[in-house]
């Protein structure tokens, strides 16, 4: 997988979540995504960026345009040094929340992505990587 055009940005406040949405949109356009794919990727990014602020205590996002053979995509890596997730499987369940939200953030973002992975352990922060390919 070839990576081009990577960029890292900080996510600390809800204003940063808006900036993440704008940056992800720009990358999706650059990768040639249509409007529906752009919207899905930006929505997934918005969910995870909010988790980074609300649960992770802030963190970073790395945006990359990735190429594999002839297909192009956008890969997003969200990293925080927060308390981490003890039970990832439960956290991925629709409707499960510890924060009073709808509990759709992780599960919904996964449905909106072509590739999705979480690495996390209590006390060791959380890294969420997601990617969407241009169809």
């Amino acid at each position, binding site marked *: 997988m070839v990576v081009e055009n990577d960029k890292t940005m900080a996510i600390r406040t*809800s*204003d940063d979540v808006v900036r993440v949405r704008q940056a992800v*949109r720009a990358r999706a356009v650059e990768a040639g995504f249509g409007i529906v794919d752009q*919207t*899905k990727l930006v*929505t997934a990014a918005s969910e995870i960026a*909010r988790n980074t602020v609300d649960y992770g205590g802030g963190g970073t996002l790395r945006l990359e345009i990735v190429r594999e053979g002839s297909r192009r995509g956008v890969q997003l890596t969200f990293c925080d040094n927060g308390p981490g997730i003890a039970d990832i499987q439960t956290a991925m369940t629709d409707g499960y929340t510890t924060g009073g939200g*709808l509990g759709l953030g992780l*599960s919904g973002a996964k449905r909106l992505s072509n590739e999705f992975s979480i690495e996390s352990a209590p006390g060791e922060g959380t890294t969420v990587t997601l990617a969407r390919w241009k169809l």
Partner: protein
Amino acid sequence: MSEIPILKIGDCLLVSIQVDMHDRLAMELQDDLTSRIVSERARGVMIDISALEIVDSFIGRMLNNIAAMSRVLDAVTVVVGMRPAVAITLVELGLSLTGVRTALNVDKGLALIRRAIDDPRSALGRRER
């Protein structure tokens, strides 16, 4: 007061969201609208989201909350102008917006509110045709 203006048209309140919603702004709008429903004795609330490029679970929850609060205050809420890509994404995200009535545009939204106020039983459907 939030930065999003709330306009009064007859007994309806109209909100057109023209900015990228950060979470605090969404909460402010929810609070402002609830107070204005009471102070203006509004019977209908129309929220135009045609300028919104995404609706994520936080904004979706705000729309749900506004609809629920206005229902308790005897007002009807209609969300109008959702972009097709936003609708597709919302469904895949898993957000069904149960309890939020929708219409394609402001005209149809006003007609739906009018009908719901005049005859609550006739406007039980969620979508203005």
